[in-house]
């Protein structure tokens, strides 16, 4: 088979104030024509840097120190800027990570696509437009003839990514690069985009490179996989070889940590201990040695041998060959090679039957969308939308409740309303049997000690000008609590969340994602709360690190009997740590019950779609269909009848007229569907 792109011995460094960061070290792998290659790795692995190196769009402080990137017979690294410009978009094109920010907001799609076709002097304007319309049609945009004249903000998230794919394929490139193409999208849309890429791949005969941290996406889409760690390729192979017979300890660990692969419900998740090494410092031996459970003395001194049969199937590890070859490695698939965290969770002594910590009953939150004058002039009588609609929910001490929904489901609004940050229109919120809804802040403030929030963006929610030490004790100062030794308190909290004490002197931007999360947990714990509301506690974290945070939260719960309300869109993660799940759609809870039961046997079609939407990290279990189509409608256009009716594959006439009430399957499992799936 012909090689389309050949990366040979590529090394690259970034010049930073901290020194030269060796972001890529001696990368070599071929990309064969017509194949789909997945580059998988965690943040800092250098996977995206490879893409930008191929395109010649590296940051200005980057310098290629060795190697070449052969595209057909040209070395892309040796091409002039104008030579590269001719290749970009024409022969090599890109699908970007976030369609919300990667398309210019002030130009129509027609204009943007027209601009991409500027190198086609033989095409008339009408031909270019017809070609663009055809491409929009091909990626599944209904009514492309008129929608092509719209701007990106007229398109919903999923449609924007479809348009992004249409733009990338417009010129019929030989190589398509996809940089985390579904990371910014919700689960049900992710499934649709994966499906679209699968279809286009077989239809257009393009070579595709997919860069992602999402093992499920890679398993569903790719033929071959390149596993990267800290700037090096550690293993390369066919997709089945990588997922079913991984050789490198890192590949193995990565697969074991993926919550979507863990079948049996367990409160704890496996983790890869330690942090990615500092690439500004010189590295000797195996790059993974500091975190590897099987590390031997030789791993820290000698570079591992490249063990493999061909250029397209190899792994770099001392365990596989040489004097330290271990014939027992790798162990059978059901043996765990990574630890389940540092400590064993104490048995959950705090009784769950002690009554309710938090109780939300029929809560409604409305947002006003226009002023009275505008509404009157437009003849609109309803000036508000229902962000939260008749929601009832409870959290008991020592219990974890997962609140799951896609963006726009109102889950974050619900969390903020409970914390009295957003006023509610009616309904009731009680905390320890005390009504707290819309309580005046001066009465509510003492209660804030008992209810803490973990914010979604760990770094963004920390003041950049305060040290970690100051940030951790900040809640104590805000509440004016008498604390004789703040330093000792900061150290106690840091120990509690297993944050190394030297980090107390640092500032938020100097922390890794996992460390910043730990600071967030420490802040939430500073006042000894009874309830913690965690908004996407693992968003933006690598799989190896998210287990650590969730295990930490589980340990703290076992120790202190905390109640958790975890707001998330990540169903596989929340499944393992929750006692109960509530699924939200358009501001309503559509299903509510024991986590494992909901996951195994969903009653509501939307829950089923969410469960099935998660791509399975197993190339033998690729989906052949998408469970639901369409996207979450705007709150302004709440459907008559059931909220989910516009996307439900099982919808009947009755669903279009009446709103289904909540009905119970068992005393603690209810749903809002006329025709439940069980």
């Amino acid at each position: 088979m012909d090689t389309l792109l050949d990366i040979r011995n590529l090394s690259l460094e970034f010049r930073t104030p901290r020194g030269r960061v060796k972001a890529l070290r001696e990368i070599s792998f071929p990309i064969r024509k017509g194949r789909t290659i997945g580059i998988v790795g965690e943040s800092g692995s250098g996977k995206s840097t490879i893409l930008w190196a191929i395109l010649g769009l590296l940051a200005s402080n980057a310098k290629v120190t060795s190697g070449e990137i052969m595209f057909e017979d040209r070395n892309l690294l040796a091409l002039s800027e104008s030579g590269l410009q001719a290749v970009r978009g024409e022969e090599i094109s890109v699908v970007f990570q976030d369609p919300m920010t990667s398309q210019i907001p002030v130009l129509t799609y027609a204009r943007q696509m027209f601009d991409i076709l500027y190198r086609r002097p033989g095409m008339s304007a009408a031909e270019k437009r017809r070609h663009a319309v055809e491409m929009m049609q091909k990626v599944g945009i209904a009514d492309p003839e008129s929608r092509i004249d719209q701007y990106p903000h007229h398109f919903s998230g999923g449609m924007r990514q479809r348009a992004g794919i249409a733009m990338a394929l417009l010129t019929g490139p030989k190589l398509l690069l996809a940089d985390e193409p579904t990371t910014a999208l919700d689960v049900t849309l992710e499934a649709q985009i994966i499906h679209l890429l699968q279809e286009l791949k077989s239809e257009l005969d393009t070579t595709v490179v997919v860069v992602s941290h999402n093992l499920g996406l890679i398993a569903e889409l790719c033929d071959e996989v390149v596993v990267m760690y800290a700037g090096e390729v550690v293993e390369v192979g066919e997709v089945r070889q990588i997922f079913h017979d991984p050789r490198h300890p890192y590949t193995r660990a990565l697969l074991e940590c993926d919550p979507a692969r863990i079948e049996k419900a367990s409160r704890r998740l496996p983790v890869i201990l330690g942090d990615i090494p500092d690439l500004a410092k010189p590295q000797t031996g195996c790059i993974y040695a500091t975190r590897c459970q099987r590390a031997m003395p030789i791993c820290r001194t000698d570079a591992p041998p490249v063990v493999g049969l061909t250029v397209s199937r190899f792994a770099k590890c001392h365990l596989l060959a040489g004097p330290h070859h271990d014939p027992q490695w790798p162990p059978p698939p059901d043996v765990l090679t990574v630890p389940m965290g540092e400590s064993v969770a104490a048995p959950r002594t705090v009784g769950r039957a002690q009554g309710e910590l938090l109780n939300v009953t029929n809560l409604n939150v409305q947002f006003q969308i226009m002023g009275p004058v505008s509404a009157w002039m437009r003849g609109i009588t309803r000036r508000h939308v229902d962000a939260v609609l008749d929601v009832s929910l409870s959290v008991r001490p020592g219990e974890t409740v997962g609140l799951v929904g896609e963006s726009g489901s109102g889950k974050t609004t619900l969390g903020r309303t409970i914390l009295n940050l957003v006023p509610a229109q009616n309904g009731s919120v009680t905390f320890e049997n005390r009504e707290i809804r819309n309580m005046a802040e001066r009465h509510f403030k003492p209660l804030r000690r008992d209810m803490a929030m973990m914010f979604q963006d760990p770094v963004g929610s920390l003041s950049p000008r305060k040290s970690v030490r100051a940030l951790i004790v900040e809640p104590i100062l805000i509440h004016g609590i008498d604390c004789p030794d703040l330093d000792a308190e900061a150290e106690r909290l840091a120990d509690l969340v297993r944050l190394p004490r030297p980090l107390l002197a640092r500032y938020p931007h100097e922390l890794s994602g996992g460390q910043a999360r730990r600071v967030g947990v420490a802040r939430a714990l500073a006042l000894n709360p009874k309830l913690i509301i965690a908004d996407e506690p693992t968003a933006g974290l690598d799989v190896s690190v998210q287990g650590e945070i969730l295990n930490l939260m589980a340990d703290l719960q076992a120790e202190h009997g905390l109640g958790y309300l975890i707001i998330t869109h990540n169903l596989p993660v929340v499944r393992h740590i929750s006692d109960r799940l509530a699924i939200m759609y358009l501001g309503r809870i559509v299903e509510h019950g024991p986590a494992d039961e909901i996951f195994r046997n969903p009653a509501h079609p939307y829950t089923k779609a969410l469960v099935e939407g998660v791509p399975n990290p197993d190339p033998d279990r690729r989906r052949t269909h998408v469970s639901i189509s369409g996207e979450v409608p705007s709150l302004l256009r709440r459907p008559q009848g059931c909220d989910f009716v516009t996307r439900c594959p099982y919808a009947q006439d009755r669903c279009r007229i009446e709103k289904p009430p909540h009905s119970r399957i068992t005393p603690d499992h209810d749903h809002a569907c006329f025709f439940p799936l069980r």
Partner: protein
Amino acid sequence: MYIYLLKRLGLAVAVIGAVILVLFSLLHLIPGDPATIALGPRATPETIARYAAKMHLDDPIWKQLLVYAGNALTGDLGLDVFSERPVTAMIGERLGFTLALVFAGMGWAALLGIPLGCLSAIKPNSWVDRLTGILSVGAIAVPSFLVSIWALLIFAVQLRWLPAIGAGEPGDFSDQVVHLVLPAFAVGLGWVGYLARMVRASMLEVMGETYIRSARAFGLRPRKIVFGYALRVAILPTITLIGMGFGGLVSAAVFAEIIFSRPGIGKLIFDSVMSRNFPVVQGAVLVATALYIFVVLISDLVIAWLDPRVRESL
């Protein structure tokens, strides 16, 4: 869109109403009788009484206010105390000169400042950028009356390239243009600096956006990316600044008009204040305010025209 326009026009009327109220109260808040103030200390009691009766100063204040507001809205701004000519006509004669000065000043500032800002942003920290930065800050820092005086001394007195005073012969267009050069230069110089800095800052921000990287990844030409994509977004805040700058320039024009002895609203206000010709001051300030509101509205509409997101939120 129409609702938005109606809202803005309603707001404009309210602002003008408030300005009328303030101007009117100022006159009455100044200690003493308006007629005495208007006519000066040497006026005889008879003149004052005659004046008060003619100007309806005997009427209750609210009635005077309503009459003035009503007249102002129909275009009657009262009479000059000395010449007894209608204020509206006096302003009308001079408005054109001020507008020409302000447009010319802002025009050349935009034509020079915006490209300079772009150039600096494309190659940050290059010598072009550094030089532009130094010159911009310098241009912003020097007061415009100083620029006027130096420009006058160098180009008109020393080099004798351009005329020093006046606005040129009526009807002779090229003569008027030649007379406009120095004042426009003086009025606009600071704005070259402002605009260059502003455009540089917003261009740098936009050039870092993901969609610019997308455009590069699609292989678009660098010139297309800078002017067709980045500038289209980066220019939006600059337009707001220019809109507000017009308002500021109407008052900055006072210096230029005095120094170059040009007729214009600024000079009219200055002269009227000096001679306590209050109806003229009132009228001229009112017209300047209305002008300001109008230009800001226009700049908002231009932004709406350029940015579909703003256009649709109207």
